[in-house]
């Protein structure tokens, strides 16, 4: 009989039941076909190995998180927006940039100042964008490389019925938008979150391990840093979300009690300078962070430079940072006033976003 085709030999490799008996019998006794089968097996194994790397070496994807993300695009925005912040904040806490900031930042707030043994080392008075490349981010270890991170209090993000309820839940004035930009209509939904408190305990051993993994030697920590605790507090906060008919947020106005950080004893600049000197942080990024955080009142906002452009503007006499995605989809502006961070963002142009921001009451 004629030799079976290459396609038949290929099917013998991984679905032999689909190959007719006569072909199988032929191949078993034909040196030419057995050679062909071996080649097919080798090529199949190579292709499997080359395309399988991302699958076999990793845990399965986080389906819950992925479902929430999809819900953002398919469902009413409130359900979608509400669960996200807690996870994002937690992620932010673990972000290497946060670590680089000397544990100082990201989620600060008010109430923890009452704790007597905590020294306030950072309070947000303004925001500055720090362009970070994806490469920088990938190069950095996460916060757990430097010590233990515990979330003391979750923000309990939830939807409330109206502006009055949002104000009652957060104690913050709810920004009033009098004139909506073209294309944005209807009433907003309201989401609130309580205070998020996280504590980080610096471990010299852990940091040394991280350094060793990177093939570097850890600079010796300044006195008192090993074992010292930092408390990061943010919130409460609220968001008003206007949606398009199809469920995509068209305009978001959010207000959060500004992030604050407290230390169990080590001064801010000591912790900052040390952490900025750790291996793994690119020099130019460290220099920028050092510059921005010189006074302990500027909250650096890590911005992926490949995706987002930043500029500055003025909102009600306050310096504001404007962020625009390079694909033109999103624009946002953020500023700080009296210890409160306010942001306006949407699928809008910069002029429209600034007009809303400047007209907020």
């Amino acid at each position, binding site marked *: 009989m004629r030799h079976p085709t290459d*396609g038949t030999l290929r099917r013998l490799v991984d679905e032999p039941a689909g190959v007719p008996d006569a072909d199988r019998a032929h191949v078993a006794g034909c040196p030419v076909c057995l050679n062909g089968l071996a080649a*097919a097996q080798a090529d199949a194994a190579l292709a499997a190995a080359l*395309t399988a790397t991302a699958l076999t*070496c990793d845990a399965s994807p986080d389906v819950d998180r*992925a479902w929430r993300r*999809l819900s953002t695009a398919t469902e009413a925005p409130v359900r979608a927006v509400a669960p996200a912040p807690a996870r994002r904040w937690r992620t932010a806490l673990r972000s290497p940039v946060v670590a680089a900031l000397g544990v100082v930042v990201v989620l600060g707030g008010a109430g923890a100042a009452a704790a007597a043994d905590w020294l306030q080392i950072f309070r947000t008075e303004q925001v500055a964008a720090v362009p970070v490349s994806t490469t920088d981010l990938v190069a950095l270890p996460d916060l757990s490389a430097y010590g233990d991170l515990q979330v003391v209090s979750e923000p309990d993000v939830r939807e409330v019925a109206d502006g009055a309820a949002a104000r009652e839940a957060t104690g913050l004035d709810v920004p009033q938008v009098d004139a909506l930009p073209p294309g944005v209509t209807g009433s907003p939904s309201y989401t609130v979150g309580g205070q998020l408190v996280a504590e980080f305990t610096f471990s010299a051993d852990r940091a040394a391990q991280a350094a060793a993994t990177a093939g570097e030697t850890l600079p010796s920590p300044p006195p008192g840093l090993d074992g010292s605790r930092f408390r990061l507090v943010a919130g409460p906060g609220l968001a008003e979300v206007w949606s398009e008919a199809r469920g995509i947020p068209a305009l978001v106005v959010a207000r959060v009690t500004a992030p604050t950080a407290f230390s169990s004893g080590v001064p801010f600049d000591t912790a900052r300078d040390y952490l900025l000197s750790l291996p793994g942080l690119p020099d130019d990024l460290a220099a920028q962070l050092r510059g921005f955080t010189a006074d302990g009142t500027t909250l650096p906002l890590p911005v992926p430079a490949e995706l987002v452009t930043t500029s500055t503007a003025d909102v009600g006499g306050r310096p504001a940072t404007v962020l625009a995605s390079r694909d033109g989809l999103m624009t946002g502006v953020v500023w700080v006033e009296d210890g409160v961070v306010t942001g306006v963002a949407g699928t809008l142009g910069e002029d429209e976003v600034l007009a809303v921001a400047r007209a907020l009451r």
Partner: protein
Amino acid sequence: MPRPQDAVRADLEHVFRADYPRVVAVAARVLGSRDEAEDVAQEVFLAFGRTAVPAEDAIRWLSVAAAHTALNVLRSGRRRASREEAAGGGVGTAPDVADTVVSREENRRVRAALARLPRKQAVALVLRHSGLSYADVAAALDLSPGSVGTTVRRAESALRKELSTHASSD
């Protein structure tokens, strides 16, 4: 980001929870990057949510769509630009596993080789290696079941040649 139509099929969550990992796996075979594969899976399920594809055909439909969408990403060189990442979300901050296992260079060459394959061959290869049966691949690509093996065989052979040619010329 694609915008959903008004109605989203009622069984979307059920299908999503059942099939999401497999859909990510199909896209990851093409892209070699979990993060990018998850972006593709989002796009694919968004589209699926607007279809009336019977639930029993869902995984086949989703796998084919994932393979095509991922190949489109590969060919266009489209970068990730999700709002989450633009907002500083953590999805892009972990090093890709593929990069730690295969060298970046090899990973890049595999992706380039996949992008150069004829579309039908590339999809057949990815679907078969993702576990679809010969009959499923045949139905998905409008091939006779007998020619699936031939198409996959050609794709694998071309992949090997592409890589050995480029490896020796590097």
